């Protein structure tokens, strides 16, 4: 039963990871750029929601507003920072996204300060019991909301006209341009959707863990997730996000106590620290060694 309890919590967190990772994949597919600023979008989204609720608006409206603001912020980042670098090498552009991360962290630090902030309650307190598993409303709403959004997004990408244009641009942007797709608008749109998803993910994470600058570190978790999922696969990002969430929960709830119990009995080591934070990167290395194209990845072939 305890295992199931951990798995449920892990799935809830994992679905938020999935949401954030989808955004990274989206931009990578469209423009070949790995967006290191995703963590900053996550953090900014949560701060926006916080700031808007402080103005006295109800939580639901605050979340909607902050998501819209994040969509604008994403498009603005693309237009103002990345568009002028259109002809620069991809590595240079990735460094710039790293710069955006540092810049936005500094801005958040200046505006909201370095301390942990009590995040406004978006969902009611309490928990429900399903088949003997207790889930707090926080986890339940965060998890179900993000998994629904992730699925809705996948459906959007698959079935709508804009989704088709996105996929075509991602697949072959020169061909997309030639057949009459406004590719630069599609790239702006990808950034905008990506930032909106990240911001929403940030808001949901802040309801679970509180709000601080440290929220931007979650952007780094997105990289093990997308590498695990195969860098270009959106369903891969969702599955890998859920998987990583569950693995982290198990590490925190089962592996760490067992390991610490063992170490305390036989050595003088008292604690192993936050092992669940190390796990994603250990997994990243493992995946890169064993299956570099990821679970759902497509191995590119070279014409000889």
């Amino acid at each position, binding site marked *: 039963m305890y295992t199931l309890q951990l798995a449920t919590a892990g799935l809830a967190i994992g679905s938020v990871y999935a949401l954030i990772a989808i955004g990274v994949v989206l931009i990578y597919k469209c423009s070949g750029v790995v967006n290191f600023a995703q963590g900053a979008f996550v953090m900014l989204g949560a701060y926006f929601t916080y700031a808007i609720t402080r103005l006295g608006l109800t939580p639901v409206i605050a979340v909607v507003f902050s998501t819209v603001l994040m969509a604008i912020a994403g498009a603005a980042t693309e237009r103002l920072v990345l568009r002028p670098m259109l002809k620069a090498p991809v590595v240079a552009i990735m460094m710039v996204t790293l710069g955006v991360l540092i810049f936005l962290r500094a801005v958040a630090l200046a505006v909201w300060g370095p301390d942990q902030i009590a995040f406004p309650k978006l969902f009611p307190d309490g928990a429900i019991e399903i088949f003997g598993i207790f889930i707090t409303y926080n986890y339940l709403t965060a998890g179900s909301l993000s998994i629904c959004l992730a699925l809705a997004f996948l459906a959007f990408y698959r*079935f*709508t*006209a804009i989704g*088709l244009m996105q*996929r*075509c641009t991602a697949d*072959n942007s020169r061909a997309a*341009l*030639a057949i*009459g797709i406004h590719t630069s608008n599609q790239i702006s749109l990808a950034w905008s959707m990506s930032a909106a998803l990240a911001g929403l993910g940030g808001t949901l994470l802040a309801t679970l863990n509180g709000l601080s600058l440290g929220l931007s570190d979650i952007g780094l978790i997105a990289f093990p997730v997308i590498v695990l999922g195969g860098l270009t696969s959106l369903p891969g990002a969702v599955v890998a996000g859920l998987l990583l969430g569950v693995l982290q929960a198990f590490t925190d709830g089962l592996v760490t106590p067992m390991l610490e119990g063992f170490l305390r009995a036989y050595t003088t080591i008292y604690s192993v620290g936050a092992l669940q934070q190390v796990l994603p990167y250990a997994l990243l290395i493992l995946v890169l060694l064993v299956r570099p194209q990821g679970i759902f990845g497509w191995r590119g072939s070279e014409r000889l």
Partner: protein
Amino acid sequence: MLEATGVTIRFGGVVAVDALDVIVRAGEIVALIGPNGAGKTSFINCITGAYLPDDGQVYWKGENVVGLTPNALTRRGIGRTFQNVASLHDLTVLDIVKLGYGLRHSMPLRAVVLNALRGRDSVADELNETLLHPLGLADFRHAPIQSLSYGHRKAVDLARALAAQPQLLLLDEPVAGLSSSESRSLAALIRKVRDRLGCAVLLIEHKMDIVNSTCDRVIVMAAGAKIFEGLPADVQVDPEVRRVYLGEP
């Protein structure tokens, strides 16, 4: 409808298209022929916004369209196919044709959701009926385009262009790589499309039997310049054309 005057395209010192005048009227099928390197594709690239002409004007329905992006031109009703079909990895035949449709038609979200709930797709059904079936692609509609033969990929490209219901259709060697029976049915389809949409067609083609049976007018280019314009029947007896093609003095 389309009126190009004095179009000149240079690549460095090479003059690919030299002061070319082309007029295509609504409902007319015009062939653009000429030896390799005559500048035919460059001219089409210029009309669709891929190249900027160094000189000259292109008017489409009275509007000067030089400098517009391919996207803007597609929305104004100029559609084209390509000589070489681009490689796309994860789109299916139906996806690509729907993409063409989506460029000039709106697919309202409500309709998309309703279709998804009913488990069918009215746009896809319509495209299947009007385009994929006549082009012999109905059986492949869920196949990734990479898995198709060259001829079928060209047919997909044509279906994609037609799905946007263009008013000017620019076809770059549509029957290259097709068998002669496939070529004939494609030529018949082009005429049928012209009759149905009333669109203008500008066709680059090397196969003279297709040109003769399909086109209303022929323009012959050599080294970037127009050397002949007239009826298909008169092309082969024109001394200048014979000189360029056959090397007669």
